[in-house]
């Protein structure tokens, strides 16, 4: 422990505050290289679903999730380089919700917060007000040798978006219901794929790539939009690169997968957990076989099944440490021998514990 860490610890007056730091619902992402001087980290917070009731009233439960994540992100030592917010800041895309969420995010003691568009932010005004707060819907940047890309992966067919619904609010509500059969599949879309193709032309093939999206950029379960309709086309654009990491929100649960050279990892929500799709008895789904599920959530702890992750990308590959409320912590690391992410404690079926069985 270095001196600055000790002094920070001294600053935390109670053991309770320390305990809070060890279970915060943000993703702390560390990119580690063979040359450790290049290492850096960033924090990732996602899916806060700030929900307006009326006037100045918001759903307390979801507020607490984001407030806690922000407060604890500010306590991270060593301090990450920046913060990513993974989408669904709002519940129904309302100005009140985005403003209230932005106010909470403004408490982040960081120079830069990169935001991802979620469907709950988008379908009221198609991201207009969100853009006033956070800028373009998709963009890229470079940081310490890594190329970062943020996609808006929650758009859908024009006919659904522009023709089907009599009001913008109805469109929003129809898309907000995860299990609503009137919804429509998410996609990145042709225009954005063209942009991505051009953006990646200037990037060397051995540059590590980190893609942030809201939906998974893979096909897991269409019924709940754990799905990206043009996932195959997006994956094809990422295929030429040696080390690609896709980090996504939306699913409110631990998922990881490997498709070719692309590692996929989800982050936790600050609001509430979602069931694994295979627990819906009436439909087939395709949770990546690699994934050892998170523990079943205890509803009596309202922050349970949210958590924070440290993602360490050694030689461009990701290792995630999930720190979960009221639950056993998890570490999912890329294993170069098998060529995919594995849970370092639980991947072997003989090591799994009863709460990981979802039904």
């Amino acid at each position, binding site marked *: 422990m270095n001196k600055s860490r000790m002094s920070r610890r001294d600053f935390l007056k109670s053991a309770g505050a320390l305990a809070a730091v060890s279970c915060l619902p943000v993703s702390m992402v560390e990119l580690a290289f063979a040359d450790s001087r290049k290492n850096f980290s960033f924090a990732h917070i996602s899916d806060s679903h700030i929900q307006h009731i009326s006037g100045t009233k918001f759903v307390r439960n979801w507020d607490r999730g984001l407030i806690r994540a922000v407060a604890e992100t500010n306590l991270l030592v060593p301090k990450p380089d920046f913060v990513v917010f993974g989408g669904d800041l709002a519940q129904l895309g309302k100005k009140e919700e985005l403003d209230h969420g932005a106010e909470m995010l403004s408490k982040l003691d960081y120079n830069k917060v990169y935001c991802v568009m979620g469907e709950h932010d988008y379908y009221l005004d198609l991201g207009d007000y969100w853009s006033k707060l956070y800028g373009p819907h998709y963009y890229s940047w470079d940081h310490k040798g890594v190329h970062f890309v943020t996609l808006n992966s929650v758009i859908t067919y024009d006919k659904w978006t522009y023709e089907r619904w009599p009001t913008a609010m109805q469109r929003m509500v129809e898309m907000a219901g995860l299990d609503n059969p009137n919804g429509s599949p998410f996609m990145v879309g042709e225009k954005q794929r063209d942009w991505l193709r051009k953006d990646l032309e200037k990037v060397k093939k051995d540059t590590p790539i980190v893609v942030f999206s809201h939906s998974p950029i893979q096909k897991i379960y269409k019924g709940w939009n754990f799905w990206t309709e043009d996932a195959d086309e997006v994956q094809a654009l990422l295929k030429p690169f040696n080390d690609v990491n896709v980090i996504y929100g939306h699913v409110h649960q631990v998922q990881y997968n490997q498709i070719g050279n692309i590692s996929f990892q989800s982050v936790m929500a600050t609001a*509430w957990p*979602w*069931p694994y799709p295979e627990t*819906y008895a009436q439909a087939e789904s395709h949770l990546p076989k690699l994934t050892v599920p998170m523990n*079943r959530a205890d*509803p*009596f702890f*309202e922050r349970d099944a949210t958590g924070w992750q440290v993602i360490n990308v050694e030689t461009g590959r990701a290792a995630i440490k999930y720190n979960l409320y009221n639950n056993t912590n998890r570490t999912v690391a890329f294993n170069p021998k098998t060529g995919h992410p594995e849970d370092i404690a639980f991947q072997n079926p003989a090591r799994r514990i009863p709460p990981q069985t979802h039904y």
Partner: protein
Amino acid sequence: MFGKLAGAAFVLVVLMLTLGEFMVRADEFTEEDLKRWQDEYMSVVNKGRALWVSPDLGTNGVACAQCHPNAANTHPETYPKFQKQLGRVIALRDMINWCIQNPLEGKTLGLDDPRMIAIEAYIAHERKGVEMAPGKH
């Protein structure tokens, strides 16, 4: 002895068959009846679904479906069971009321409230085909 009993049974059967001609038979029903009963059931299931996605069960706009899409993770087949957080064996409707009171910040429903029955019907409908497993955690 056996012959006497068999004889009595035979007389009884004949008597029932004969009398049956003149009686309304409650144990016969038609395809139309079956359809009507299924429709009645589905109308309650559909009411349950409407409540499931409705902000009106609670006071804060939160709906059941926000955490339980398609009523997943409700495990109706495991009730009654020992609900470890409450320290006693409860029925599914007790857990429904817990959710209405806590995440939805609403008032509990009476256990015979038609809305409670509709919610139970919807949960069971989404879970049909899953084996009964009372007590399972």
